[in-house]
């Protein structure tokens, strides 16, 4: 996916919306900036397919340098796919964070919160100001 076309959580998750059989599906991952902050990832915990996620709430966790960090969902809906191969191939996150590094796909129950997410420029501005 092209990073310019995505929306971003202030907490570093990206989301892209695709159409699948007439349904809106959110593809979710974490940004290259987040991966740079995380440095060497050693563990990742992902949600189960079927789980209901809510925007702003935790959907997974990662560990790097003995630090556990939560991952926050940018959208509301039901998890319909999880990139479970990532757990044993965490390097894929770093090599292609906006493509092969996708983490989960969510069938949206509401699009209401999407407008509140950051666009690429606003996200990059946040990163440059915060760190």
């Amino acid at each position, binding site marked *: 996916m092209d990073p310019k076309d995505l929306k971003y959580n202030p907490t570093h998750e990206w989301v892209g919306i695709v159409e699948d059989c007439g349904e809106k599906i959110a593809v979710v991952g974490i940004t290259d900036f*987040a991966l740079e*902050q*995380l440095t060497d990832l050693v*563990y990742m915990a992902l949600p189960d397919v079927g789980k209901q996620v809510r925007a702003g709430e935790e959907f997974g966790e990662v*560990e*790097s340098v*003995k*630090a*556990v960090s939560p991952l926050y969902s940018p959208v509301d809906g039901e998890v319909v796919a999880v990139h479970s191969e990532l757990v044993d191939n965490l390097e894929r996150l770093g090599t292609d964070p906006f493509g092969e590094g996708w983490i989960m796909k969510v069938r949206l129950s509401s699009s209401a919160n999407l407008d509140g997410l950051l666009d690429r420029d606003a996200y990059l501005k946040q990163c440059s100001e*915060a760190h």
Partner: protein
Amino acid sequence: MEGYCYIDRPRCGSMNMAVDQFLARLAGQQQVVVLRLYQWSEPTLSLGYFQAIRDRREHSPSLPLPLVRRTTGGGAIVHHHDWTYSLAIPDRPDRIGPSTSLYELVHDALVRLLCDRGFAAQKWSGCAAESHENNANPEKACKSFLCFERRSTSDIVIGKHKVLGSAQRRASGALLQHGSLLLRTSDFAPSLIGLDAIDRSACLNSSTASSTNDTFPVGQVAGQAVDWECDLGREMAQRITSALRHQWNVTLAHGLPESIVSELEMTSDHQFGTAAWNAKR
């Protein structure tokens, strides 16, 4: 910023973790820093958050011990003769990953403490070449079940022995950092060397000898063990508090307010005492 520092009474594993979680939430909600030093009321094995419970079978000496899963990462620790600290600070939601600066602040302060006590302590990053030579199997050093058999750059080592390691967790608007200083060798982890068994005379070098005194009778008189352990716990609290004040302009009051103590004592171990938590992986 302000906060609190206190030395807690020994508690069981599940309550120690519940108290730390309470304090982390407090740090996030009230925007305060809380430093807690504590020991454990019974020898306990704590697992790193992502460790699988079945992996404890790799370490037979600690099999008889009760187990609790931490919220922080890293490897397993046998809490028998150690001081554990927890440091909770307010955190911003846009922060992710390790806080290297917090590891460094605490570990630099504790390196200075150990050096003042006559130990040639340093961070592992300061002696990486030497330590690599001592680790015949680097892969094992990264994946070992026990935290004290692993090495990361901020760990405190004396010679080839790791004596302090820390780990972190971001959640609930706070960053929680746990760490453990190994005081004495435990029968439940006999391969790990505590401070009492490290020969200080062999450690002394020109930079530490001048600050060495004889007030810390490590390993000399068994009956005095409790004294030097208590003394060291108090000094750990003082050194970390001082570092926070001088480097981050954070002032910690001694002790917790009564209102917080009352609430804390109501804390339940309903999460950390359950199989659902401890055997979740």
